């Protein structure tokens, strides 16, 4: 069979493919949030990783202190963390729109360091366990599929596609796309653009928090879980093209899978493969695979 030719047992191949899909789901959710925020606000949201971590912590705290289980946290944590995003945008980020992008990046980067520092101070960095809400799985013959991981992949895909639909196909989405081009004119048509920007930031942050809730049962809940992930996610965003919604989704899933496959065939490169792809894309197509040149 083909597996013998490749010299790889099917269990290992499909196991890594599934892991790749899981990582891809997180890459897609997180880069989608970044793309939505960047597209409308021109802000590179470096706090995104910390907000993903806050989502995971919110679900842990909801369970620990309020007895609210995973399914409740799946709804509540993104709302709570999204609301903190709204406050951050109103109080801080909105003051920087008239300045260069770099200031937004520095502010959000500083916020990420502060937030992560506070959580590490309070909870240490060894990580807190979060029980798997759907234990067990099924043997597909060629591999074992844990239910929860299947749920994460399917649910992420649904959220990504729903977000894409909202932005590309609805009235609200047409306001967002138009405001990306000419916020002054959209406002002169009678739309409260500053409020729309605030809510968009909140939505992008809520997506990060949702990814955090999904991640809690897979990885432990850890103050630095976002810092590790966000660098890779930025590479994903650069490869997909800043601000492209479908680009973020496709690139997220595809790079997760490529990373998984690299673990099977050439494990030594698995940590760097995404960055190598990023370097190549930047040289050949600086606007990213799905981006439009400015």
């Amino acid at each position, binding site marked *: 069979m083909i597996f013998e030719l490749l010299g790889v047992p099917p269990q290992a191949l499909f196991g890594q493919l599934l892991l790749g899909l899981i990582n891809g789901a997180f890459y897609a959710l997180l880069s989608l949030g970044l793309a939505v925020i960047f597209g409308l606000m021109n802000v590179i949201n470096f706090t995104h990783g910390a907000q993903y971590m806050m989502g995971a912590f919110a679900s842990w705290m909801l369970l620990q202190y309020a007895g609210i289980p995973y399914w409740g946290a799946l709804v509540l944590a993104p709302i709570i963390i999204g609301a903190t995003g709204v406050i951050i945008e109103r109080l801080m980020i909105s003051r920087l729109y008239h300045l260069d992008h770099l200031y937004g990046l520095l502010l959000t980067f500083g916020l990420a360091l502060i937030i992560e520092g506070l959580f590490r101070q309070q909870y240490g960095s060894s990580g807190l366990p979060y029980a798997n809400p759907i234990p067990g799985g099924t043997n597909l013959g060629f591999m074992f599929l844990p239910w929860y991981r299947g749920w994460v992949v399917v649910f992420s895909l649904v959220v990504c596609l729903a977000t894409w639909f909202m932005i590309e196909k609805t009235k609200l989405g*047409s*306001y967002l*796309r138009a405001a990306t081009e000419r916020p002054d004119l959209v*406002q*002169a*048509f*009678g739309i409260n*653009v500053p409020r729309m920007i605030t809510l968009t930031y909140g939505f992008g942050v809520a997506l990060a928090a949702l990814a955090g809730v999904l991640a809690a049962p897979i990885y432990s809940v850890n103050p630095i879980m976002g810092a590790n992930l966000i660098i890779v996610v930025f590479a994903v965003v650069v490869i997909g093209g800043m601000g492209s919604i479908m680009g973020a989704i496709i690139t997220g899933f595809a790079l997760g899978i490529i990373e998984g496959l690299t673990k099977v065939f050439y494990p030594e490169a698995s940590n760097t493969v995404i960055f190598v792809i990023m370097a190549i894309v930047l040289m050949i197509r600086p606007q990213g695979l799905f981006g439009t040149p400015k």
Partner: protein
Amino acid sequence: MSEPLLSVRDVHAWYGESHILHGMSFDVNPGEVVTLLGRNGAGKTTTMRAIMGMVGNRKGSIKHQGTELIKLKSNHIAREGIAYCPEERGIFASLNVWENLTLPPRVKKDGGLSIERIYELFPNLKERTSSQGTKLSGGEQQMLAIARILRTGARLLLLDEPTEGLAPVIVQQIGSTIRALREQGFTILLVEQNFRFAATVADRHYVVEHGQVIDMIPNASLEANREKLKTYLGV
């Protein structure tokens, strides 16, 4: 005489350090088509943007149906029933023609044209609804830019150089559209550099220079003032 629909008094406006409007004052009466004529850089577009609240730094008084607009944000000004069609047309590249046409929300319950009526005025748009907005010709983009502000219920339209860069046959079409809109009771403030075109559509003309109104000429006496106007406009 009836109250003016729009009354602009001693309006000053700045872009950063540069002082663009130096005390603009003029009136627009209900149902009128009024033009602002003037050379490039006279402050005509800035006047439009100041009325619309799109210039951050402005002072003076701009009243619409008695409501003071000078302190309002542009989204609230739009909700008063004023719609703006910018000089650069502002067709959105990431939206198709239908999305562009239906983008501006209804600001008043009554008074907007139906989509059918808009297609009667601009039949070209009907065949291109799924095209990308910026794939249209310049003339079609201008029609789309006017069309989309007609269904919102705004009764005061600010049209900034709708004929700029267009072929004579399209200019004629836009002229007849403006006359049709006037017959339907829309009030129109028009910025123009082409006074020959302005003469075919407007009731009165304000001449703008250095951010001020320096003269007002009723359309009926445009011929008599032709030489004076040529000096003003440098044509």
